[in-house]
């Protein structure tokens, strides 16, 4: 199956490992991955910050770039939700191709829950708000993780609570965002997991930022919690 990868501006710029892992998983499962190089950004940040005109331009750019795609796959629940549910608000009439968040594509389209990965670590999963509430990916990421060899999945308390990132909310309401982030990391650390996993590089960037800031405050952090994208676990073997 031919798959067009939308890497998202954030993963492209700051988390290329997420993109490489996504490619690895898709190719391992027999997909031919195409990366239209004219792609940039879905416009989510602009729309959510109050700049719908710029967001509309970016959505139209996305639609044009992926015009002949059979299936667009992206390792981000929030970008997928933006393009699936909000694109028509900022770019009426733009023809958005069929698109999937990675776990949706693997489970629904390819019909796979065991991707042949091995990750011998204790992992807790944060379901991220836009994946769960806007896209409704449900238990798909958990099913994928449960089939990873050696992976010990532990439940995250108050998992449904937002990590506090919220795009420019993280800056405009930094105090509230920070408090939410600190609470989320406290929950994650309480599980004793080695890795905090999620399916959105943006939420992971915020959570890793909180962890690193906390660890920096201690000369030798008792135990380090690391963040990891779902795609990176699924690519490991």
């Amino acid at each position, binding site marked *: 199956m031919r798959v067009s990868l939308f*890497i998202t*501006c954030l993963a*492209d*710029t*700051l*988390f*290329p*490992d997420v993109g*490489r*892992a996504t*490619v*690895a998983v898709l190719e391992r499962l027999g997909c031919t991955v*195409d*990366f*239209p*190089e*004219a792609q*940039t*950004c879905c416009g989510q940040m*602009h*729309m*959510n*910050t*109050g*700049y719908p005109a710029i967001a509309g331009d*970016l959505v139209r*750019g996305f639609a044009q*770039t992926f015009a002949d795609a059979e299936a667009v796959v992206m390792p981000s629940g929030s970008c997928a939700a933006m393009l699936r549910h*909000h694109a028509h*608000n900022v770019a009426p009439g733009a023809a958005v191709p069929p698109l999937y968040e990675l776990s949706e594509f693997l489970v629904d389209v390819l019909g796979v829950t065991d991707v042949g990965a091995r*990750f011998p670590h204790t992992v807790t999963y944060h379901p991220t*708000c*836009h994946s769960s*509430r*806007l896209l409704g990916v449900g238990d798909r990421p958990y099913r994928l993780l449960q089939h990873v060899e050696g992976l010990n999945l532990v439940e995250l308390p108050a998992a449904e*609570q*937002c990590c*506090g990132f*919220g*795009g420019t*909310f*993280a*800056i*405009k*309401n*930094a*105090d*509230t965002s*920070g408090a*939410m*982030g*600190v609470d989320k990391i406290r929950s994650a650390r309480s599980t004793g997991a080695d890795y905090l996993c999620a399916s959105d590089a943006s939420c992971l960037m915020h959570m890793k*930022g*909180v962890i690193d*800031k906390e660890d920096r405050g201690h000369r030798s952090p008792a135990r380090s919690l*690391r963040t*990891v994208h779902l795609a*990176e676990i699924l690519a*490991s*073997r």
Partner: protein
Amino acid sequence: MSSRQLSRTDHVGLHPKPGEAFLGMPPFPQAAHVALGDDQLRRNLGHATSTIRTKRLRAVGEVPDWEELRLAGASIKDHTLANLDRYLIEFEAAATAAGATVHWAADAEEACAIGVAIARSHNTSEVVKVKSMATQEIELNEALAAAGIDAWETDLAELIVQLGGDTPSHFLVPAIHRNRNEIADIFRDRMAEVGRPAPDDLTAEPRRLAEAARLHLREKFLRAKVAFSGANFAVAETGTLVVVESEGNGRMCLTLPEVLVSVVGIEKIVPSFADLEVFLQLLPRSSTAERMNPYTTMWTGVTPGDGPQEVHVILLDNGRTRALADRVGRQALRCIRCSACLNVCPVYERVGGHAYGSVYPGPIGAILNPLLHGVSDPHDAALPFASSLCGACYEACPVAIDIPTVLIEQRAEAVREKAGHPGPPDPERLGMQAAGWAFGKAQRLNRLQRLAARFRGVASRIRWLPGLLGGWTRYRAMPEIPQESFRRWWSERGSGRSGLDTVDASADLLDQRRSSSERSQRPPQRRSSTEQGQPPPQRRSSSERSERVETSEETEQ
């Protein structure tokens, strides 16, 4: 944040006084900063909201057709709002025929003037009140006080708030910001000033606190000639008003006094009595997590010899027609004030209700205030941004108000409003325009990524950023800038470097990330053929597009 703003907040106090209400409060981000520093408040809120959340989930989970019920509630409200002119007239005719007097108030001032005039006409120096958001919205208590009339709140939590000299911070549990020890202190210190004192041996035991309140309020119920209320629903077909409550104190107010005045927002109308079937299921399960509401009082005008013999209804607009004119935002008028959105909101849970600077806090307040007043005031303009857009509110809302979508619309309105004012260039606006430009063409993004990679060493040492971006570094470390972007890796992979080997050792990637110093010592990658404009052989379709864009970029320059 300027120290001036902080000191203003300190002066007003975390819990604003009634009357001065929220006038001295700074906009949301600064008010939230102060609230977040109050550990007791965060503990009170965290405990209370998580308890209510768990109970609500259970109560809602019991109803197999909850989704259908929710959509029925939304569509009844939408239909009513679309025909509000007709239903309001119908309500007025039915209520009048049943012996009520219906008044129309365009704004808070008119509504208060009508209420004060009615109270005055009965030569009373005090009135009792049923818990009501509408009367708080119009600041009726303050208007009555200015006319020399004391208004006694009779809802237990409203009594706590009134005696404590602050303002409610939640629709349903207005004193959610107080714990029982604080409540016992308030009762001991303040009850004697305004009526029957608290018992000398009062403890913080809930039963003892309720008893003290009961004894204190009973005197007021028996003495009052005039009562004020709001209404949860107003039935157009019959002219009936409905108040739902849990304590019975509301029913005392609605039945004992001779005169009853109800301030009712025009969005409270439902067409028929049968429509209550939907809302009387949705409301209690969403608000108190009860299957059925403990006290549901309904009255239709005057019943001779039974209950108040003079019944007034003040139909209140106060910005509601403004909200109704907003194509996206009008759904906020479906709200039945259940407060489920407050209880599930991670922002509300951490900062409490007062930071919103309005009697309508939480997610619904964040959209309702700008809809009612517009966004020209800095408080209202800040509210649509007081959300991480997590969507928990929409999920919980019993009338399916898509609060995140309305927030997004209002953010755009706030940005437009700000742009309309002359002043120095707004850094946020410039940043958004710059980002829009960079994302406008893949080549620009590519160049910026490569530029950023050159500064990755410097960037990794950043601990603090100035201005807007300082919000990031105050709570989080900066993300590392990778040596190469994904798109650069892809184009090099296409030009012959084996990609799969690199990726399939993905477990190693995680190790690599741990020692970033190792990675930065890797020799810089050679420019690939793609970047020089020659498409790699295997990836024709994408490279063709890329080539097209490259050409247009050159044309532009």
